[in-house]
């Protein structure tokens, strides 16, 4: 354990000096984990990879500001999420009205076994419209408050709350549709 933290310290030191090998080591260490984060903030793999790259460029630029106060993974995750949000703000006009308000196609084909894999959860959450997905992700997964969400997305707190409620309802419904009523009854919104 000590060896690992010592090695991470070395990597951080190298990144602060702008050394390529250290940057590669840091990227390889967290790429898979952060790509998972990028996936549920974006629409497809390609966009997720863009966010991953943009996010890590920011990580390397700002690495000198990381003083080890919190976990490195948490700090990188925060940078990545903020990068995804920036991208959303930049491209939010590109989403059509129907994309923002419409429901999602029924994929079907799953049976409820009392357990949902992360892959299945990801598929469900990807079916949400971008705004619902962002609000739900930020609130439920990242632990943002409605105030923080409203500041990050440029919406009111009320809109954040109503989007969250709507997202929960849709997700609950989707879980039910995919895995049957038994599963739906095991969860509450």
């Amino acid at each position, binding site marked *: 354990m000590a060896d*690992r933290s010592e*090695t*991470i310290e*070395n*990597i951080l*030191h*190298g990144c*602060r*000096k*702008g*050394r*390529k*090998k250290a*940057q*590669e*080591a840091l*990227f*390889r*260490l*967290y*790429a*898979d*984990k*952060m*790509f*998972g984060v*990028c*996936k549920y903030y974006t*629409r*497809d*793999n*390609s966009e*997720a*990879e*863009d966010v*991953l*790259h943009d996010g*890590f*460029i920011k990580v*390397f630029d700002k690495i*000198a500001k990381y003083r080890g106060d919190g976990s490195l993974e948490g700090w990188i995750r925060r940078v990545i999420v903020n990068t995804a949000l920036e991208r959303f703000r930049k491209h939010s006009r590109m989403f059509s009205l129907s994309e923002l308000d419409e429901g999602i196609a029924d*994929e079907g084909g799953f049976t409820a076994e009392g357990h*949902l894999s*992360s*892959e299945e*959860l*990801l*598929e469900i*959450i990807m079916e949400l419209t971008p705004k619902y997905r962002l609000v*739900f992700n930020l*609130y*439920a*997964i990242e632990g943002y408050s409605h105030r923080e969400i409203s500041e990050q997305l440029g919406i009111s707190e009320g809109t954040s709350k109503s989007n969250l409620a709507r997202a929960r309802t849709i*997700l*609950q419904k989707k*879980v039910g549709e995919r895995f049957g009523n038994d599963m739906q009854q*095991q*969860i*509450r*919104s």
Partner: protein
Amino acid sequence: MPEDKKHIDSLFREGLYHVDEKAPTHSWEVLSERLDYRRKMRRMRIIRYAAASVAILLAFFIGREFSGDTTTPMQVADNTSSSSQHVEDQGQLFTESSFTEVASINIPAAKSTTTKPPRGSGEHEMTSHASASSAQQSNTSEVRILETIHTLSPYKAALKTSLDIARLNIPKRILKRILDDRIEHLSTEASPTTQLASSQTGWSVGGFLSPLYTYRTTESQSFGLFDNSYKTNSDGPAAFEEGQITYAAGISAQYTFSEKWHLETGLSYTRMGQSKNALVYEQTPDDNGKIDLSTSAGRINGSKIPSELGQQFAAANPSADDNDRFITDNETNTELQQHFDYIEIPLLMKYNVYQEQVAINLISGISTGIMVNNNAVVTIDGTKSDLGTTSNIRKYLYSSVVGFGMQYEISKGMFLNMEPTFKYAMHSINPSSDYQYKPYSLGIYTGIRIGF
């Protein structure tokens, strides 16, 4: 709702917070390409700024040196000075193998899942052999485009990486971005970029330039024929003297012992000196109007004093003897400049106190100066005359040096340095017991250093 029901938020948080998704295999290569491009652009920008700054400084000093030289040729010396180069982090804290080891660390988080592209998205499936082959074909056109540019461009080497990446099944849009970056780079860059050597270990060399404020301190214990008040009298040899703006330039070599300690030496040309806004005559002009001038640095055995000044002296002091002094009147616009030019060889220790993108270090050491030029120039009402040399000046000058340096890493192994440095002579410039004349200088040594 029963309390034991699982909240929808928890369901997704627990399921997704720690989820790993295998990042595309080529991901680092693409990111690396973007980082290289950003570095190159940043380096080019800083080099342009540095070159512009150096050009401005050079233009300033050259213009200053050559302007207004209307009559007698005077000795113009190029100046240079000792300086310092910068701190570099030599500490190779980790090795290739340690990186490889770290890169292979398995994060003990949630289980990894195989990324499935969204249905109907048309995304390339990187882990599939069959689809990789398809992606290979789909990239053929991009490879051709890159190869075409490759043949047209003089910067073939710079594109090699792009070609390599193009063969890695990279999605078209990402490849397009690399291509766009390359085209932009080729259209803006004037010449191929030299691959800079690493400065992680051992030696580094550089050049520097600095404006200098140079003056002196004086002290004395006896004045021969004169009493002690003579030193500070308004008509004493030190009267009307003031500092001078000069310059220094040179090259330096630095050896890094550890992450903290560095030793630097080099070769520089430094101009020391002072100005005087009046002339203090110490004796009657001879029949040819020649006269000696007194300064706190020593006497200038002048031979080219304008005859009108000699006449002025004679008119004011018809019965002057060797103990009389005469000062040019206030209405005469007179400036005497004494220059002492040295080739300097510094020996400096540097200690890093802060090491980030910008490093800060403390500098201390000594410098040996070998005098290569000693001259005095007087400008009277815009007319410049060479007066000769200040007599009795020592050939060698030993100075102590203190300062601090700031170092910015422009790119790997290449540093921009800025070092405010104070240099103070450890002994008098002349052996005279009248004045202990110790010159000092304050400069901001700025330059580039390259490690190898």
